[in-house]
């Protein structure tokens, strides 16, 4: 068994958190609260670093406009005073509005344009044809809600269109099932990749059971 204090700390933290798999116990709750405390402290330290580099340094250099986000940030604390709590809506609206703008632009670029561009590449082999057809089929699950077969006085074109969309939507559901299965398999393997180093820590580095 190792005498390295750091390995002991790592092993005890790992064991404490894994003990929850048996059932909730004081050892787990101790490690859980320690982890929460460390996580929060780290976040605050990172936040302080941002304030220092993006606000205080710029203020010191004469960028007086930086006072605005500082004032908005302080307004967040108005939530503690019921009569002035509405003031905290301003910084929250700023955060939400900016986040919406950043997300929309990022999503348009990476989630729509890049994906559509990748889907519209020239078909060079069977696999690329399959990918294209399956993409259209899976999209039809999201964008065409296929209801019951049209009844009454409807034209043959409408019936044919309904059949095409219905068949595409059915194929799309199968594609999505394959996707969910693949994502599931990949995620399990990724988590296994995190679990194995934990076992190595416990059985190799800590108690030297394996080499």
């Amino acid at each position, binding site marked *: 068994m190792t005498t390295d204090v750091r390995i002991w700390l790592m092993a005890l933290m790992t064991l404490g958190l894994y003990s929850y798999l048996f059932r909730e116990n004081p050892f787990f709750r101790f490690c859980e609260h320690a982890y929460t*405390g460390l996580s929060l402290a780290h976040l605050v330290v990172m936040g302080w670093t941002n304030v220092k580099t993006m606000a205080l340094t710029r203020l010191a250099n004469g960028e007086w406009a930086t006072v605005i986000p500082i004032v908005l940030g302080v307004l967040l604390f108005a939530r503690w005073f019921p009569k002035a709590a509405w*003031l905290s809506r301003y910084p929250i609206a700023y955060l939400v*509005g900016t986040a919406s703008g950043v997300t929309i632009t990022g999503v348009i670029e990476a989630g729509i344009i890049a994906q559509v561009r990748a889907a519209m590449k020239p078909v060079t082999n069977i696999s690329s044809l399959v990918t294209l057809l399956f993409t259209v089929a899976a999209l039809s*699950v999201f964008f065409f809600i296929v209801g019951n077969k049209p009844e009454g006085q409807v034209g043959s074109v409408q019936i044919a269109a309904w059949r095409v969309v219905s068949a595409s939507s059915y194929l799309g559901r199968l*594609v999505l099932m394959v996707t969910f299965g693949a994502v599931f398999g990949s995620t399990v393997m990724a988590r296994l990749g995190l679990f194995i180093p934990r076992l190595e820590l416990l059985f190799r580095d800590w108690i030297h059971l394996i080499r």
Partner: protein
Amino acid sequence: MKKEGPILIGFLTGSIVITSYFLKSTGLKSISDTVVRWRLIIAAFALALGALNMVRLHGKNIHHKGRNWQYSVVFLVFFLPYLAIGLIRGSNSAQYQYVWKSLYQPASATMYSMTLFYMTNAVWRAFRIRNLHAGILMFTGAAVMLGQIGIGTAISPLIPRFSSWLLDTVNTAGIRAITIGGSLGIVSLGLRVILGLERSYMSDGGN
């Protein structure tokens, strides 16, 4: 002022960021960059508010000897010294990095790896073949997992090839469709927020 002001702020900030994306104007881009940078400063204050709330909550629990107050002590014992080290000596200091590598990193990896056990439990429930869809889900999941481990190759060298074909072809198509569909949803929700139609973020800031 209580409602219209925040909606106007949300509209202006969101509009500046979006407009600067579509119009290639250097001046507008500079304003947009400033707006986005200020967001990080305000977010840091939000973190400080959250941290102070946690300290108040745990402090009250210890003061009143509330339920499981001992764990509140544990929280503060780990939170306050680590925060002090980070603020005084910086996040690159040896002491900060020692705690980071000895406690935070293993705890973080352990928490993530624990989901493996819950996923195994989910496999037991989800992989019962009740219909064609569930069968496809099970078959694909098993093929992808077998394709990534040595035993898959030992059973048949075709398994890893089939697994990578599934991931590159069918999975790509499905993920692409989900991404496009989800992105359109995100854009519509974001526009609702910017236009002031979605106001749930203002529900807890007084009347």
